């Protein structure tokens, strides 16, 4: 647990640094805002379209597929750590490889389907 209590201390240090910088940021420097100065940057133009608009559903799709593959990695990591240990056990060696082959195969099918349905195209 020592490592984790050290992390708590580290987190406090970093948050302290962030707060210090935030306060310095607020204190230092001149403050004379004007209407023109606070205009959002649009290459010198007055903003024509508001940035509050909707975007392609592609981005949500990528986020969903990302979650799926993130979970896949989460399953892969304990398997990878234990793989050497599985190999030392005669009854588990081949099975350990096969179970991950099946798991990755099914997910590979998902990736192939997503690819085929043009979920990965950005045009």
């Amino acid at each position, binding site marked *: 647990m020592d*490592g984790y209590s*050290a992390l708590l201390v580290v987190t406090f240090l*970093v948050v302290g640094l962030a707060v210090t910088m935030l306060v*310095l940021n607020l204190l230092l420097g001149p403050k004379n805002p004007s209407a023109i100065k606070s205009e959002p*940057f649009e290459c010198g133009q007055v903003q024509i379209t508001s*940035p509050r608009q909707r975007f392609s559903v592609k*981005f949500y799709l990528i986020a969903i597929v990302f979650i799926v593959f993130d979970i896949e990695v989460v399953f892969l990591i304990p398997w990878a750590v234990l793989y050497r240990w599985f190999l030392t056990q005669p009854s588990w060696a081949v099975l350990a*490889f096969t179970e991950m082959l099946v798991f990755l195969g099914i997910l590979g099918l998902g990736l192939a389907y997503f690819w085929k349905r043009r979920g990965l195209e950005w045009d």
Partner: protein
Amino acid sequence: MTAQVVEALVHAAIKFAILVPGFVLALAALMSWIERRQSAMIQDRVGPNRASIGGVRAWGLFHIIADTLKFALKENIVPRGSNPLLFRLAPFMAMAPALIVFAVMPVGPTNRWVVSNLDVGILFIFAIGSLSVYGATIAGWSSNNNFSLLGALRVSAQMISYEVSLALNLVGVFMVFGSINLQTIIEGQGALLGGVLPKWGIVVQPVAFFLFLAASIAETKRTPFDAPEGEPELVSGYFTEYSGLALATWFLTEFAAVIMVAMMATAVFFGGWQIPWLPPTPALVATWWFQIACVMAFFAKTLFFVWVQMQLRWTLLRMRYDQIMTMGWKYILPISLANVLVTGLFLLLTR
């Protein structure tokens, strides 16, 4: 709470205070100068060399001090129609995870040289690193600026796409060394293959190394993967509206991420603090000069990878955004999956 616990915590705080402000932040400040001098050299210019203290120019090194002062003394402009609270907080939401991850990096052979030696090591870096996407996204969204929003959109999609590949490429290394603890992985790299070749990550997992480097550069949003902040398209991407110390924080975060990538590449693929052909026997590890030498080796390797990333920035062209996403999902991801299976099959057949 016993005195022992307090002492351990104080030690951790001191170590972190030495590692992060003393190495990471100092190097980040130096990098802001190196990057401009190097771009000048490559583009056949002189570059920044005018800042001087009492007539001493020192190749423009004083620009670091001048820049810091200028950043600190500039006005902070909060754009109209933005969300001021989120706008001001966002850079620090990005900075905090980028600095906390350094706590688990072992820079030397014993526990003395690591702030927090976690059993979940690398996974902790991924977990905290995955939180850094919010800072950029919220910055772009809260700015009320079209360029910022497009940058935020691109950066979040790009970061999550490459996060998977990044982790997948390390799975092969975990299989070879049977651990996700960074110290154990580095110790495992001390052996010699066939008595000649150091058993470094790059030797046992060459494909994974190059894919890892590509994916991690994409994760830090640097050239050739810097479409989220590409000047010709998006001005400065998600941090277009920032000024003053807040803008400096964005640069700091980016350079800290570059150093983290360099340290990860060193620790996982280049033997960490191992000195090649000098196996760390317990007797050697007990001596202070060997420990210092190991720490020096670690930092030398880290500096090498920082240099590689800086060099890449001025060597390669910026990729188009669709090319970046295509590369991540259609090439790097399937190849790293295949790499895991091939590694598994190889270990199974040679058991």
